């Protein structure tokens, strides 16, 4: 796969092959061009990188462990399974990596106010956290339906001093929260930095978020070499917008012997209408400022996504993932609600680690495929977040908190 050598995306137009770009109202273009310029300057600025590294270490708690999941490995009787413990970050997920980076970006560009969209609430919490730490004003847009599903995170954001605005349009989930955040940004573009939470949106956002999340894969590479003396055979991560997956995949892009697997939310199954499998079931289209793979009808109306996990409940995907899928560098496989829920319980019981429902999709893939892997294969799963936020939702599905969780 020589085409992967010297991987150089995005190109100067913000494209990843045919995907990406900047499909936004003209009002935002100057801000995006300025952001790109500022970002490229700061990326090369040693004092910015030193400050970023400081907060990642002393505030977020990095590096996160690469943990050998011994009991899961034994149980499956298959490959050696390692978990990249992003759940151990401050605020409980990988989202803080990007929020710290973009919070510093806002500070260095003189913005006193940030806005963010959130699905499961993890990115909203991370943004609210950083806003508190850096003394920034923060407004988070969240779908009304997600506010109901993730009430605890709404409360956390408000405790941290953020304003949470319900997105009432469309399906009232992540897609609509992102629409509202972009609309708000168009009105406040002169004094507000928009902290996009995933590798989505117009250029340069997919690149910025990728760069701030690549610490996941960089650490993983170093840690697996230390523990196993070689690179993994397979790396698995769940994909909604795809920021934890991109952070994990990107440092391995040119290591073509490492298989990259993204797990898409298949909801009730990709043969039904209730899923969020934009790579497997979507077509190229434009969502939130980027050309990417998109769930849509024949006339280009975006169709609602479904997933048990609010963080994967998104009809699009980051444009670089669409590019990876097209070039074959990564493979994207569907995992159903049911499989994810089973993996949620399995990891809790075997390892004493309650994973986020999002991350449970990645675990479920390995549970399903373990039989087809070699015993001495090494598999790394990105455990993108902890499942505390999902406990109440899962309890309700099981008939309420009083009914125990002995399935």
């Amino acid at each position, binding site marked *: 796969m020589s085409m992967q050598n010297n991987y150089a995306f995005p190109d100067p*137009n913000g494209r990843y092959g045919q995907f990406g*770009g*900047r*499909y*936004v*109202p*003209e*009002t*935002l*273009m*100057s*801000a995006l061009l300025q952001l790109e310029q500022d970002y490229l300057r700061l990326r090369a600025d040693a004092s910015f990188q030193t400050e970023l590294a400081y907060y990642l270490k002393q505030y977020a708690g990095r590096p996160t462990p690469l943990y050998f999941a011994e009991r899961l490995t034994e149980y499956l009787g298959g490959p050696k399974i390692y978990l990249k413990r992003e759940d151990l970050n401050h605020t409980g997920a990988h989202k803080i990596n990007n929020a710290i980076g973009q919070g510093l970006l806002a500070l260095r560009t003189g913005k006193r106010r940030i806005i963010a969209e959130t699905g499961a609430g993890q990115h909203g919490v991370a943004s609210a956290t950083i806003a508190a730490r850096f003394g920034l004003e923060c407004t988070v847009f969240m779908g009304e339906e997600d506010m109901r599903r993730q009430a605890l995170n709404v409360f956390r954001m408000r405790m941290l001093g953020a304003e949470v605005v319900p997105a009432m*349009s*469309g399906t009232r989930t992540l*897609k609509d929260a992102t*629409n509202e955040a*972009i*609309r708000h940004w*168009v*009105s*406040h*573009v*002169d004094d507000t930095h928009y902290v996009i939470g995933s590798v989505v949106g117009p250029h340069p956002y997919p690149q910025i978020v990728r760069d701030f999340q690549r610490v996941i894969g960089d650490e993983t590479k170093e840690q697996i070499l230390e523990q196993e003396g070689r690179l993994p055979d397979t790396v698995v991560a769940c994909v909604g917008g795809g920021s934890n997956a991109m952070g994990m995949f990107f440092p391995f892009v040119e290591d073509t012997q490492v298989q990259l697997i993204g797990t898409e939310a298949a909801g009730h199954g990709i043969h039904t209408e209730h899923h969020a499998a934009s790579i497997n079931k979507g*077509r*190229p*289209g*434009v*969502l*939130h*400022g980027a*050309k990417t793979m*998109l769930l*849509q009808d*024949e*006339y*280009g*109306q*975006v169709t609602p996504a479904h997933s048990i996990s609010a963080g994967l409940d998104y009809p699009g995907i980051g444009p670089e993932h669409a590019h990876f899928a097209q070039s074959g560098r990564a493979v994207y496989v569907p995992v159903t609600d049911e499989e994810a829920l089973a993996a949620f319980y399995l990891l809790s019981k075997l390892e004493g680690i309650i994973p986020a429902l999002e991350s449970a999709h990645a675990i479920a893939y390995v549970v399903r495929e373990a039989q087809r892997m070699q015993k001495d294969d090494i598999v790394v799963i990105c455990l993108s977040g902890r499942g505390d936020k999902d406990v109440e939702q899962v309890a309700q599905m099981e008939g309420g908190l009083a009914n125990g969780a002995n399935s």
Partner: protein
Amino acid sequence: MERIRDAFAALGSNKALIPFIVAGDPDYDQSFAIARAILASGADMLEIGFPYSDPLADGPVIQAAALRSLNRGCQLPDCFRLVRDLRSETNKPLIAFTYVNPLMQYGATRFFAELAQAGGDGVIVPDVPLEEAPELARVAADQGIAWIPLVAPTSGEERIQAIAQQARGFVYCVSSLGVTGERSSISTQVESLVQAVKRHTSLPACVGFGVSTPDHVREIAGYADGVIVGSAYVRRIGDAASGDGDAVEMVTRFTESLKDACRA
């Protein structure tokens, strides 16, 4: 494209009134009746919004209209049909307002060809800025459709120049930061935006976003070549759809009052 040029030329010292409605809002027949009434009561051109599920550049009023239309099953073929049905009765320019995704799905060549065949004259795509526009603008031109780009208060002289050069038909000047929707006043900055556009093109410069009242129209008519009024129409149509008045009568009266404000 000629129809747009001729329409501006025929205005003399008056300014163009360009109302906006959403196709299929609240249903096909009513939107046709509303469009006819607007054209018959003094509009110089009509901008027809093609409904979209995720209208990023629109405020709540037009979002709601798109939803009303989509819920009644209005899709692209119905939008082209509305253009065709109106064209059989009017010689005034008809301009499509569409987000890029429906256009891309349908295929740009096919989209512009069908729009032209139906009798459409121009297109406005609010989520395609300068950098993403060249290919689409070329395909539109090949089919005889004017590419009408937007300039914003944030654009800056260099971008304004490039956008003005890309424009056909007229240049759409966005009055203020933000999405579409009624405003209580019009920013004084927009006059300098119009002047900047005029430094770089001889095409007409029209102002939209937030234009809501005859007073706004009168003010803008003092320096621009035309005004686009959207949400103020769409809100009236929405009110009528929920039982509060007759849409045709309301848009007729509203158009007459705006037309009056466009006269020199």
